[in-house]
């Protein structure tokens, strides 16, 4: 577990009152942060400090979308979730996994787990960014958020007995219907956004923005809503100030955590020799990987040979054909198709590569002038990128559907005398 070193050591001059202040600041910057007293008791592994720390860890580790619903989860359920979340993130100490499920003990271990999380990344800042109050009309430009938070966990229901296929058809139909309703609502939202942006041109104090967003318009229309917005902004400010204060004094905290670690009993030797719990590949699996890699290389060589032979045979057969003028248009069309696919593939590859591509939600601003890029993103470009991605996905879907159809035809063909009539609209 590492900690940051700074050139200047402000904590050295801070004195005895610095630690509670820093811990208090940390608490204010985290959701459901417990009091400094809880931290102190946790150092001595007092049981009464455990529940508050379990709850804090639960809030930090549970997916963002589950905030409202899961606040009412029982302590046992929260304990379970915290344990499995920490394990999957690679928390190295086994003592945590052995703590009782009722959440009654282990406050010191929890304190260590909290510091481990804090040391891994800028946790308070991340949380504040997530809870950031949006004043503008936010539009996502990539799929990352949708993919990262899969939403509330749906209970896995086992079907009792055979399911009537018509029920499945009905469910699919209902799903399609709901999708279309959603799309219609989204289109309506776009039209209304456009209207608001048009009508409020020139109303914004910030010249670069020029027009109001929905939240700002609402604030003007409804003073009570404006007050609520103000309160939310004040809360966010408090959190930011707390995070700043935490950063200024965190060295004091880390020094103190050293003493906490020192107060722990040494881990059992057997436990120490066990490898860090990585959830991915087991020892056996590594051997298999090697084997797979070798097989893949051999397969690749075979494929190269086979394609080489095939190409030679084809060229021998085709001879000089494919060169005449009547082929040029066909060749051009083929070239164009290949280029398009290549561009789409490249785009998809770049997507995975990293932050070069724009990410996350952007504020929607209607602009008359053709100001050059900078950090602004043009809607037309985003639309273009999304369209090409859509085309790729649709092509993939058609391919898969074709494969499915072939498979079905093969299965149906295996039964003599069976006439296969496809349902309309497949």
């Amino acid at each position, binding site marked *: 577990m590492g900690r940051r070193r700074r050139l200047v050591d402000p904590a050295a001059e801070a004195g005895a009152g610095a630690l509670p202040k820093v811990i208090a600041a940390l608490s204010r910057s985290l959701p459901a942060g417990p009091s400094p007293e809880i931290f102190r008791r946790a150092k001595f592994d007092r049981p009464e400090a455990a529940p508050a720390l379990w709850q804090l860890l639960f809030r930090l580790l549970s997916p963002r979308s589950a905030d409202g619903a899961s606040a009412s989860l029982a302590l046992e359920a929260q304990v379970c979730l915290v344990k499995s979340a920490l394990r999957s993130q690679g928390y190295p100490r086994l003592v945590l996994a052995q703590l009782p499920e009722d959440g009654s003990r282990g406050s010191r271990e929890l304190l260590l787990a909290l510091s481990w999380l804090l040391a891994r990344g800028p946790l308070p800042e991340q949380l504040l960014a997530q809870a950031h109050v949006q004043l503008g009309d936010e539009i996502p430009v990539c799929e990352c958020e949708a993919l990262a938070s899969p939403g509330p966990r749906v209970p896995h229901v086992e079907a009792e007995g055979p399911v*009537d296929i*018509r*029920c499945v*058809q*009905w469910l699919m*139909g*209902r799903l399609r*219907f709901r999708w*279309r*309703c959603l*799309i*219609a*609502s989204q*289109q*309506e939202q776009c*039209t*209304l956004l456009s209207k608001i942006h048009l009508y409020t041109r020139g109303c914004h104090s910030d010249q670069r923005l020029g027009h109001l967003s929905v939240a700002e318009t609402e604030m003007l229309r409804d003073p009570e809503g404006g007050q609520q917005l103000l309160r939310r902004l004040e809360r966010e400010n408090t959190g930011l100030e707390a995070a700043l204060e935490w950063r200024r004094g965190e060295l004091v905290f880390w020094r103190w955590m050293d003493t906490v670690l020192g107060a722990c009993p040494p881990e059992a030797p057997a436990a120490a020799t066990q490898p860090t719990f990585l959830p991915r590949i087991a020892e056996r699996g590594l051997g298999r990987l090697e084997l797979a890699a070798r097989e893949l290389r051999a397969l690749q060589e075979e494929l190269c040979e086979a394609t080489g032979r095939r190409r030679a045979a084809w060229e021998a057969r085709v001879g000089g054909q494919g060169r005449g003028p009547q082929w040029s248009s066909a060749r051009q069309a083929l070239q164009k198709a290949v280029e398009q696919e290549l561009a789409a593939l490249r785009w998809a590859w770049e997507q995975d590569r990293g932050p070069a591509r724009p990410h996350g939600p952007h504020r929607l601003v209607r602009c008359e002038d053709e100001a050059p890029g900078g950090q602004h993103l043009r809607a037309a470009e985003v639309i273009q990128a999304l369209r090409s991605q859509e085309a790729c996905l649709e092509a993939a879907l058609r391919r898969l559907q074709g494969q499915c159809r072939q498979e079905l035809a093969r299965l149906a063909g295996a039964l003599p005398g069976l006439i296969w*009539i496809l*349902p*309309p*609209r497949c």
Partner: protein
Amino acid sequence: MSIVTVQLGQCGNQIGFEVFDTLFSDSHSSQGLCSKRENEAYRASCKERFFNEEENGVPIARAVLVDMEPKVINQTLSKAAQSGRWKYGQHAYFCQKQGSGNNWAYGYSVHGPRHEESIMNLIQKEVEKCDSLSGFFIIMSMAGGTGSGIGAFVTQNLQDQYAHSLKMNQIIWPYGTGEVIVQNYNSILTLSHLYRSSDALLVHENDAVHKICAKLMNIKQISFSDINQVLAHQLGSVFQPVYCAEGSFHYRRNPLGIDWQVRPPLSGLPPLGKMPLNKELHFNTSIANLVILRGKDVQSADLEGFKDPALYTSWLHPIHALNVWKTQRAFSKYEKSASLVSNSQFLVKPLDMIVGKAWNMFASKAYLHQYTKFGIEEEDFLDSFTLLEQVVASYYNL
């Protein structure tokens, strides 16, 4: 959320006019049996869906009128304008100088593609006037020639161009003893094409509505105008605003958001009054039912009869299959009214009959040249038969 209506052919245009008229009269009626504020919310919701506000105040229906001859369109436009209360858009129509026989194939393969751009442009203009598009409502007959052929073509185009919007087709099921010889051919072609490209088919049978006029309303000389008005009343009671949930304060935003669930055709079956419970041993099994209650005492209405599992298929729980919409605001001056929109086996017998008759004609190759002349080949017929047989089978096996 707005609906764009496409009125096709003589049938579609005449019915469409009655529908808009009913919707407008109801939304401006003073006998809503509810508070003033509620009435205003109702009116505003209805207006957002069906009408466009203009500067001088006369609402313009969100509709596109299409026909191959000018007579009916001109009549419809002038009737609306004369009332002075609402009107159609000045240029929101498309028609040709001369009609062309009752030929489905001609409508689908010739008229459709030839006038595709003009018609879709008109629709696009209407769509652009909407703040948010809920979907399309296409009114057409099933068995007429050109109207139904073009209707099938237009619906297909809407599917391609507005893939994400909902589409509902209002189809008029012809009289069993209809006058057009090839009406069964037209019907199966229309149904099979619409089945592939539409989201919901709302069916009204001429015979059934005729009976309502004769028996329930005691009209002696039943004209098409009477029939259309009954139809419009039924449609209006389905389309006017309703609350989306118990105790909510806003009217449902998505009027076409009826969860049609599995796609087979629907039948409209609205009695005016309370719904009696069927004590027969064999029910028409439903996939889904939508009950709409309007007027006095809606909160205390007893709907237990609709939750009987015997009414529904075995693989669906009544909770999922039954939807209930309510509003206290009375519809069209009726103190209480109830509508039932049902996706059930109700239409299986009529459909089976039509398919059977069409097949008999097809087997003897009668009148096929009228279709093959314009590009509808025997394979297309066979595809249609296959599809409809599948639909019939799925419904029989519910």
